């Protein structure tokens, strides 16, 4: 506490000095400096308020003899007052200084002084033109009627000035100078969150002068971006695209903001990720290839940095889904070629991937999958040094399109014929892209064996959880297969329960056997969520499977919520025998 108050005192000296330097913020340098310090300064004022709240006037005078100076200087600085919250904090401070029953002449004087300053703060910069005041008063209006309208007209006038220049270019008489645009963007910094200013902010963002250099102030971009991210301002998409194209740090901050939201929200179902995603405007903005490339690059780093975390993977897939949707909505004929979005991928591969499976009859889905597999395999196994960007790049491209990637296992289980080599390869590749060809061949062989067992079980009259587990080779202790391969097999099994006619009878038992750890439970939850999300997007007609998946998911979530952290409970069969 003592330390706190000591640091407040030293801060106090600093800000008193700053306020003297700032004066009335009439120069560029002072305005710039205020922009940089405003958050800290407001925080300091808040601390002062908290301190004043607890003090009587004699303590105030003793501890902050120059409090009057501090508040007056703040009140006379229009740049500070223009920021959101400034007035409120000052008013609260002043309210603390005004005592209900002043006991001596000193307190009386302080009361009277604070009242005057309060009045000034609330109606600062009163009509400075006599006629206007007289006129509005004669009409029975107050300044509360007049100022908002005047402000609106000022904004409209500036907007039309900017637009006119934009349209007419060189030859207008009212040609706006680059310096003026710059200074306008500077004055707007404290005001971006004032709703009246939205048209002007938009006009500035979409205004391009004739000079190659950026004329808008960097602090302006920062302020607009922050206001947009915190939902303190609503701007049309075109303006936001201009903002992100003109100011890269803003785009990066928008991405980080999205990541932060995803990290701090407790459990991310894909529907929720989709809401965050659409809300962020990033997929729509990414229709501009320059924005897409940067967003995608950040995803790549996130994926590499988290060693391919499933959450990041899911986020990329949702992003791509929303992006492709936006692209279609924006323009049926692509304004930019796909090559501009995916410069390193083969255009024919991208063309196949970007198709929505929904647009192809379900019975034909194996065809594009085979094409995808062949094309990917060609790139991955190409040994010539110049062509190879590594299997990671091919995989990174592939996993964008979750609709296809997750469909492979399902396709393999649906057909009773000999599993096609192409699909086996694609499945092995998508779970473990960096395997060597020997290891991949082994995985493919293992998948083939498991599929054979499962098909046999499908034809047997009774299904049991133990048999299923045995079929996947899970029950033997000390499974020698690498984790990615085991994960693949688990997902194969989960798909099997959802699709096999008798799957629902043993579903819960199988899940209980699998979900022995928290980690595994979460994996199954994610799998079910992803599957349901994908089916929704494909408009899949599979009522029994859908119902089962939803029931399993609900049940698992209930268990997770009620389970003490870290405790691995033996899960009781709950919905065994649920009718599908």
């Amino acid at each position, binding site marked *: 506490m003592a330390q706190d108050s000591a640091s407040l005192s030293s801060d106090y000296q600093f800000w008193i000095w700053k306020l003297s330097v700032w004066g009335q913020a009439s120069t560029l340098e002072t305005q710039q400096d205020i922009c940089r310090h405003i958050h800290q300064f407001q925080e300091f004022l808040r601390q002062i308020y908290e301190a004043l709240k607890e003090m009587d006037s004699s303590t105030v005078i003793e501890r902050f003899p120059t409090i009057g100076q501090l508040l007056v200087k703040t009140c006379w600085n229009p740049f500070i007052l223009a920021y959101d919250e400034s007035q409120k904090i000052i008013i609260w401070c002043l309210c603390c200084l005004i005592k209900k029953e002043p006991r001596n002449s000193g307190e009386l004087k302080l009361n009277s002084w604070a009242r005057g300053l309060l009045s000034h703060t609330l109606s600062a910069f009163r009509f400075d033109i006599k006629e206007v005041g007289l006129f509005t008063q004669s009409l029975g209006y107050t300044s509360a009627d007049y100022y908002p309208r005047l402000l609106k007209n000022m904004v409209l006038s500036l907007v039309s000035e900017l637009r006119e220049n934009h349209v007419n270019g060189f030859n207008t008489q009212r040609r706006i100078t680059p310096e003026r645009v710059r200074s306008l963007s*500077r004055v707007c910094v404290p005001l971006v969150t004032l709703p009246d*200013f939205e048209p002007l902010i938009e006009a500035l963002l979409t205004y391009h002068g004739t000079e190659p250099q950026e004329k808008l102030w960097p602090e302006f971009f920062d302020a607009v971006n922050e206001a947009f991210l915190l939902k303190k301002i609503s701007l049309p998409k075109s303006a936001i695209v201009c903002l992100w194209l003109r100011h890269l740090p803003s785009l990066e901050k928008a991405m980080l903001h999205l990541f932060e939201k995803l990290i701090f929200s407790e459990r991310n179902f894909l529907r929720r990720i989709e809401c965050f995603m659409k809300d962020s405007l990033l997929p729509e903005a990414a229709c501009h290839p320059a924005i897409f490339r940067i967003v995608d690059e950040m995803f790549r780093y996130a994926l590499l940095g988290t060693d391919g975390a499933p959450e990041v993977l899911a986020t990329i897939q949702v992003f791509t889904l929303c992006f492709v949707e936006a692209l279609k909505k924006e323009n049926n004929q692509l304004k930019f070629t796909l090559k501009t979005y995916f410069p390193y991928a083969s255009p024919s591969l991208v063309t196949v991937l970007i198709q929505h499976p929904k647009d192809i009859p379900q019975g034909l889905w194996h065809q594009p999958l085979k094409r995808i597999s062949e094309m990917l395999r060609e790139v991955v196994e190409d040994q010539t040094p110049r062509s190879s960007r590594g299997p990671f790049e091919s995989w990174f491209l592939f996993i964008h399109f979750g609709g296809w990637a997750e469909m492979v296992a399902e396709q393999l289980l649906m057909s009773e014929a000999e599993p096609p080599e192409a699909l086996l390869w694609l499945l092995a590749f998508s779970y473990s892209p960096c395997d060597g060809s020997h290891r991949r061949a082994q995985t493919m062989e293992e998948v083939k064996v498991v599929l054979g067992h499962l098909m046999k079980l499908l034809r047997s009259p009774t299904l049991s959880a133990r048999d299923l587990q045995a079929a996947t080779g899970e029950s033997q202790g000390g499974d020698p297969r690498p984790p990615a391969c085991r994960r693949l097999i688990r997902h194969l099994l989960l798909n099997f329960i959802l699709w096999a006619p008798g799957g629902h009878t043993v579903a819960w038992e199988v899940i209980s056997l699998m979900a022995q750890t928290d980690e595994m439970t979460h994996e199954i939850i994610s799998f079910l969520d992803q599957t349901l999300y994908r089916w929704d997007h494909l408009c899949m007609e599979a009522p029994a499977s859908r119902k089962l998946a939803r029931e399993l998911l609900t049940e698992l979530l209930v268990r997770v919520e009620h389970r003490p952290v870290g405790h691995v409970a033996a899960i009781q069969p709950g919905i065994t025998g649920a009718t599908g």
Partner: protein
Amino acid sequence: MESLLQHLDRISEVLAVSRTPHVSSWDAVAVRRALQWARYMRHVHRRFGGHVPIRTALERRLQNRWKQEDGSGPAAVPGLKSFRDLGRCDILLSQRLLDNRALGGAAFHCLLQQLFPGPSVPDAEEETPQGRLALLARRRSAVHLMRFNGFGENSAVWNDLLVKTQAELLLERLQEVGKAQAEGPSRLLSSLWERLPRNNFLEVIAAALLLPSSSSRPPKEELELSSSRTQGEGGHELVHWLLGKSDVMATFCRSLSAALLTSVAGRHPELFRVYLGLLTEWGRHLHYDLQKGIWVGAEDRDVPWEELYSRFQSLCQAPSPLKDEVLTALEASKAQDGDFEVPGLSIWTDLLLALGSGA
């Protein structure tokens, strides 16, 4: 209904008193009650915004009150003038009390507690008085900041904005007054004409006559159902008043710039005809000074040739039908004078010659 009207009367009185020294007798209880009434009227505004009979009844009562107040003093007391004002009567009351130094210490302290509960009370955005008062103050700062940084070097644009804003307020008020009473707008305009500095008022009238129909809409947070018609009706009232007041119309046409009058004439054919009539009349007052070779007035108040010429010239530069009508009128006057083609005999011949060579 009757109790609602009584409430309205009471809050009007409270508002009237709130700016006088009489508030020195108010205690904390009185302040709290006054704010309560004001909040109640705000509630009424929200509740009955779409209820035409109640709205109309309240509006009529307010107009009657205003008329009485208006007669009593040289300057009208800004108070509740329309239904819309009910929505912010708590803010109006708060501002007056905050500014009124006659309010006693304890009462003032109570006012602060009511208005500014501090950060602990989450304000649902701009809905609390605290949020709304702060927003107003912020807008003022914004105007100030923009004026010196956004319009610093261009005072003409700034002046236009001031005038335009006043024009919007004028039209809105004219429409409100007109709804309650047919002769209301004329009476209001005449009283303003007596009271206000003329030049500013004339500029405001011209700006009001030039406003496009949509720009006089009040800020969007206000519930205004019939605002889209504001300009049309208010503008009509203005034209009607000007046509009925020949002295005002003459001053209007004499004082404002040629370009501004041409714009007004282009928008309002009735006013154009009167303007053209005035120009013709002014022209008849001039005679030809043979020695100097120019047209001069007999008296000081006569319009000089240069001014007359610039007004005709401005009209002739406007698109048809303005230009055609002006030329036809000049030709007609010239024919009346004897259709001379030589300069120095008829002012109309000379004007036509000057306009022809100038064009």
